[in-house]
């Protein structure tokens, strides 16, 4: 007995409409590959370059075990990402769910969000802006674990020599995002 796509869709829509889902997610096609995009009732909670099943466990740790694929939950994010990749959007208007993150991480991400489209900054500069000029390495760790890449633009952060250093989606993706924004 196989559940039909229509019945499956109706259940997922009902679950989201009734507010019974902690995190709704969907896979979104983009020019840099398929992204797993996840949102809670507080806002966009995660974007992941990896779409493997383990990712769902990580989503569950953000807001609770009621993690369900539900296309509508990420409609806003899907639309804004689409506009971004078409070059029509330079800033995101999405609210973000940054719960369960340490205060230092949140401060760094808030500064990161202010790095303008098409520009780059360094780990040291971000560290200085959060008032911890010696914490470039810790800032690097925050970038490495950034839950909401692209929207929180860790691709705009490079090494002090201008080298790309690293990126969760791979250095080629970082390069492509910077090219899209006309930064390189």
């Amino acid at each position, binding site marked *: *007995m*196989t*559940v039909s796509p229509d*019945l*499956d869709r*109706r*259940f997922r829509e*009902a*679950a989201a409409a*009734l507010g*019974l*889902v*902690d995190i709704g*997610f969907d896979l979104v096609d983009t020019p840099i590959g398929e992204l797993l995009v996840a949102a809670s009732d507080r806002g966009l909670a995660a974007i992941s370059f990896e779409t493997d*099943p383990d990712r*769902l*466990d990580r*989503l*569950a740790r953000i807001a*609770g*075990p*009621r*993690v*369900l*694929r539900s296309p509508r939950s990420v409609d806003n994010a899907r639309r804004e990402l689409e506009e971004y990749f078409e070059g029509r959007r330079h800033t995101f208007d999405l609210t973000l769910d940054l719960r369960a993150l340490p205060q230092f991480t949140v401060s760094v991400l808030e500064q990161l969000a202010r790095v303008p489209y098409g520009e780059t900054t360094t780990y040291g500069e971000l560290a200085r802006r959060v008032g911890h000029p010696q914490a470039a390495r810790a800032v690097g760790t925050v970038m490495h674990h950034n839950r909401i890449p692209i929207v929180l633009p860790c691709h705009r952060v490079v090494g002090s020599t201008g080298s790309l250093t690293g990126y969760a989606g791979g250095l080629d993706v970082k390069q492509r995002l910077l090219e899209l924004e006309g930064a390189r």
Partner: protein
Amino acid sequence: MRLTEMMEAVAIPPFERFYEEHRNEVLGLLRRRLGANRAEDAFQETFLRALRAYGRLEHGEHLRAWVLTIAHNVALDTFRRTRPTSELVETGADDDMPAYAELAELTDGLGPKERAAVVLRYGYDLSYDQIAAVLGSSPDAARQAASTGVRRIRRRMTT
């Protein structure tokens, strides 16, 4: 729950995984009980009840038995609603639900809610929150159903 118990407890999977694993079996059960048409609404109701209680689960054990029991009860509710003359519905166990089978004789003669409450509490060690989801009632009502069921069984055994 103590820390050591939490560490030993089977982790609760993300709902998506639980749903994907059990949805076909649940639909199969509901179709056998209710026919293809009524099975679809009952399917939704089953997983919505499960979803309502899912955030309060204390461990990830017996989830299959749990969701199949929710489906049994949704089927029963549907049957009652659509056939008020109340034909007798088989609420008993599927072959592969051993705790049901073991408790079948003891709980024979109890009403369906009491029977489900007793089996889930003492057969599967589920919490009253989980049982409430199965029965579509409050945790207090679930506790009440289990205790009434046990009282009836005791009375029957002593007479």
